[in-house]
């Protein structure tokens, strides 16, 4: 009876947030127990956008399966494709040309910036400020145009293929990226003026959604969310792939462990990504953009695991191969899934408004969680 009324025996309200809710950014369904305005329990219900990508991939060839991953974390679709390509290349023991490596890394970092820009706007919207969303989209549009010109799509690229990249760079690529860098550098102060420095924003995020380093590791929180708690988990530093071991960049960590720390990690990470692109953009070597591969790829028997750092954290692609043309089993270790599992710990004890700030700074992308 009490369940029917949406309350429990302690007089708490049980509320369904989602699957259609403005701040769940998709079809996440949270059942939250509220005591007044205070959150007592958060229970995620998943599966509203589960497409069974892992099962589908079992019937797709090694060239085909990576395009589906663009639809996982659609904001860093490039990096997802990259992870798949890396896993396949690991299996084939393929050396990819230097030019392709440069292109991949530059595009990865552009994707990371674009993703963080969107996150910034969406977070501000979660907290009730609409205007930042439009400012962030203005700059993101420039990245999208670069992507469109070189990769042929704006969101779901499928540009990185096993062995290299699909096409060569567009002739205007370097020029456009430099214009973007200059433009974004002159605009990033607006981000700080409008949101970072704003006293209301700081009050809304400081001390909210706290998680300690030990818990962050235990929950497997990676990416900016984990680094906000001081967990050094940047795959680019720990297990460098492609060119990352030759690049000079800083692994951003903050000790705060709260929503504001996670926010600052992302803001500072955008600057580091720009720094990486600047190191590479003038030095792209000439040469092939794709290694010679057979028309039909066959991976040897065994299992292959590749890890990359997406905009949300560590993405793992685990391929179990039986030696055929299709994977026997594929597992995607998606960053959002592990980050979400910590949500209950982060949100309990806070107010309802804090839950939105917490979810916003975890940067959840629901198709990434559901896969």
């Amino acid at each position, binding site marked *: 009876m009490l369940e029917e009324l949406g309350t429990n025996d302690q007089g708490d309200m049980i509320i369904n947030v989602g699957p259609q809710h403005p701040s769940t950014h998709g079809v996440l369904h949270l059942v939250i127990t509220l005591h007044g305005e205070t959150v007592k329990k958060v229970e995620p219900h*998943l*599966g509203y956008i*589960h497409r*069974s990508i*892992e*099962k*589908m991939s079992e*019937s797709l060839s090694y060239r085909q399966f990576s395009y589906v991953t663009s639809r996982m974390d659609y904001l860093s679709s490039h990096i997802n494709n990259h992870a798949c390509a890396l896993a396949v290349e*690991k299996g084939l023991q393929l050396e990819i040309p230097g030019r392709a490596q440069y292109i991949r890394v530059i595009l990865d970092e552009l994707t990371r910036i674009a993703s963080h820009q969107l996150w910034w706007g969406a977070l501000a919207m979660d907290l009730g400020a609409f205007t930042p969303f439009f400012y962030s989209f203005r700059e993101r549009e420039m990245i999208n145009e670069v992507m469109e010109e070189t990769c042929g799509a704006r969101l779901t690229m499928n540009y990185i293929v096993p062995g290299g990249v699909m096409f060569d760079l567009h002739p205007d690529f370097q020029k456009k990226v430099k214009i973007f860098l200059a433009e974004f550098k002159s605009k990033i102060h607006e981000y700080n003026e409008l949101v970072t420095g704003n006293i209301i924003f700081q009050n809304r995020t400081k001390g909210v959604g706290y998680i300690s380093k*030990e*818990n962050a*590791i*235990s*929950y*497997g929180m*990676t990416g900016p969310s984990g680094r906000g708690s001081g*967990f*050094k*988990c940047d795959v680019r530093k*720990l297990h460098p792939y492609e060119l990352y071991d030759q690049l000079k960049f800083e692994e951003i960590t903050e000790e705060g462990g709260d929503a504001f720390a996670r926010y600052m990690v992302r803001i500072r990470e955008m600057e580091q990504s720009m720094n990486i692109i600047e190191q590479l953009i003038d030095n792209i070597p000439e040469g092939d953009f794709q290694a010679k591969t057979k028309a039909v790829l066959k991976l040897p028997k*065994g*299992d*292959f*695991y590749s*890890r990359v750092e997406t905009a949300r954290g*560590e993405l*793992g692609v*685990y391929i*179990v191969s039986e030696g055929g043309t299709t994977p*026997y*089993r594929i*597992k995607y*270790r998606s960053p959002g*899934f*592990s980050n*979400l*599992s*910590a949500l209950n710990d982060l949100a309990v004890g806070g107010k309802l408004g804090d839950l939105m700030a917490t979810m916003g700074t975890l940067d959840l992308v629901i198709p990434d969680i*559901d896969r």
Partner: protein
Amino acid sequence: MTNEELKLKIEELLPGFAFEEGTEWLTLNMEAEGFKPFALQLRNNESLKFDYLFCLTAVDWKTHFSVVYHLTSTDIRHTLVVKVKLDKNDPAVETVCDIWRTAEFHEREAYDLMGISFTGHPDLRRLFLEDDHVGFPLRKDYEDPINMIKL
């Protein structure tokens, strides 16, 4: 720590495991029995300290199931892959979600899609599918005539 050193270390501490050859990370195979104490050792031993479970995968091998744990230590920076072999008819293994809390969701996912029951899990329900769903979609013998996945 390199794979060789890690292998020696584990053999010294917890002897009697079968290691796989030629893998990127040190991989060991074991049966479901005695997995929990072994996992506890991995987590708590001062010289191993595997505190970060970054992937948990269930694989259907038709003859048996296996659960693959990818573990790493954020302190010592070594990685270990543990493959636990499970029975075909009654795939069950003890939960590790009290050791690594991230396993809570990953185990629910494995239960939901592969039908592996993790004994001792506090909240082992379906995660993605409805509670009354029949069958485990990621199993190789699963067929759903309505929602065809194969082309």
